[in-house]
């Protein structure tokens, strides 16, 4: 199997007030190029932590992470992140937020008009060209999240890391963006790791669903192959027995075998 991203025997501890806190242990995960993987698990189990390890924002205490056969030694623009809370810079316009990333990645190779065109294309992709010159506080939460996605996509990353990108959105916007994301990903053949706590979203988008046990010392409990053909249509899936089988398996894992800790 082609291992584009590889997580090998990774554990991570945090220094906390009560001493060392083992957040994740013995994580092993191989992801192929062009694969779409979702991470699902209860709140606080360590999904963001695992994503940040792949991003290079955190260093593992034990084990090693590889991307494209090279050790991940820190963050870099080839692994773009859509943050859980969008993280747009409030003093820049939407355009400037995306442009900052575009300029960093393509600034050495392309001239100004090409960089501007890339920025505009990325914003157009998420349907935001009309709000290009607004500042983040002037647009809605869903729009902010879309700018965050545009910023990550504009970098044409080898791996797209998304931390609950649609978590704060209403159901309609969320469905729309899920459809858009599926189109974009199939067009660009991106490798995607996406954190979610929404079972339907996980099944709809993923090639494989990585299910995590509860923390502390959380690890991967089970990995499900979704095995649904692409392109996927949310309406057609409603009557697809395979969809329901996968969904039932994830639900059973989350609500029967690894119930939310009574906290």
């Amino acid at each position, binding site marked *: 199997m082609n291992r584009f991203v590889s997580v090998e025997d990774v554990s991570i501890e945090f220094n906390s007030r009560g001493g060392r806190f083992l957040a994740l242990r013995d994580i092993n995960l191989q992801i192929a190029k062009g694969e779409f993987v979702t991470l699902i698990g209860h709140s606080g189990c360590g999904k963001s932590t695992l994503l940040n390890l792949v991003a290079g*924002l955190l260093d593992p205490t034990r084990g090693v992470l590889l991307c494209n056969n090279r050790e991940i030694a820190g*963050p*870099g623009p080839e*692994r773009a992140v859509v943050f859980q809370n969008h993280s747009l*810079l409030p*003093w820049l316009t939407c355009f400037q937020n995306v442009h900052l*990333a575009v300029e*960093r990645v393509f600034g050495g190779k392309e001239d100004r008009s090409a960089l501007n065109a890339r920025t505009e294309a990325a914003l157009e992709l998420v349907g935001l060209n009309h709000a290009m010159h607004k500042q*983040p506080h002037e647009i809605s939460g869903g729009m902010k999240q879309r700018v965050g996605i545009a910023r990550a996509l504009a970098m044409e990353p080898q791996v797209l890391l998304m931390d609950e990108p649609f978590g704060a959105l209403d159901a309609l916007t969320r469905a729309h963006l899920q459809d858009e994301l599926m189109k974009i990903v199939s067009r660009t053949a991106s490798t995607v790791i996406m954190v979610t706590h929404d079972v339907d979203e996980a099944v709809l988008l993923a090639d494989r669903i990585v299910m995590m046990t509860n923390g502390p010392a959380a690890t991967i409990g089970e990995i499900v192959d979704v095995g649904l053909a692409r392109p996927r249509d949310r309406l057609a899936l409603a009557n697809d027995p395979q969809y329901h089988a996968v969904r039932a398996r994830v639900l059973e894992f989350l609500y029967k075998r690894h119930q939310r800790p009574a906290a």
Partner: protein
Amino acid sequence: MTAALPTEEISDARLARAARWKIAYEWLAGAGRFMVFNILPGVTGLALFVLGWEILSQHNAQLPGPGKTLDAALVLFADPFYNNGPNDQGIGWNLLSSLQRVGIGFGLACLIGIPLGFMLGRFVVLSRMAAPIISLLRPVSPLAWLPIGLLVFQKADPAAIWVIFISSIWPVIINTAVGVTRVPQDYLNVARVLQLNEFRIMTRILLPATLPYVLTGVRLGLGVAWLVIVASEMLTGGSGIGFWVWDEWNNLNVEHIIIAIFVVGTVGLLLEQAIMLVAKRFTYE
């Protein structure tokens, strides 16, 4: 039928007129509410203050009342820029030379304090090194620095500027440093993922993120500088609003002292408002 058309037109015109009246009425009502709740209390307070002053002056022959002070002010402001030699200049010149000292002293404080604050905020070792010095020197009364200034510079004017500088630099340094440490980790993570260079991090993230804190420091520092200028000019003499107050005290011209107090207060207020205006422009969300 023929009669119906004009009536309709009339009623349209009437409606439009009524709508205009309504808008005018609402505007007036809004303005009235604003007057009653925002302007009126302030005006009443001022009026009470002047009344109290008047009563006080009735019972104290030394203290000139509002009327007498106003008369003196009208004469004074009729020619604020006369110049009869170095010890007898108009209030305008004195005000300008105070402003100039504050400008130089406080300008230097910003020029040195802001970069210093950035360094202290960015590098923990530096901030630990500076912490004891800052906590020791910051509470020192401004005028205690004057002898040092006179000793070093041998002249009154730079000594006064030195006092402004040293007493207004602390809030600038401290607020800037705090601002840098409060830059949200999210923004720094964006910088890390993009692997921005140090220059870009500075211009696109650290500077804009800390600007509100820096401006708070500048506002507090300028307040201190303006507080201190009067006292230090009283001691150093020569020119300036502080010197003028002292001079008028020696002439026993109490009206002028009261006018000077109002001038100092008004200028301080204007300076603060100007910075608030700038700060508002650079505050996000």
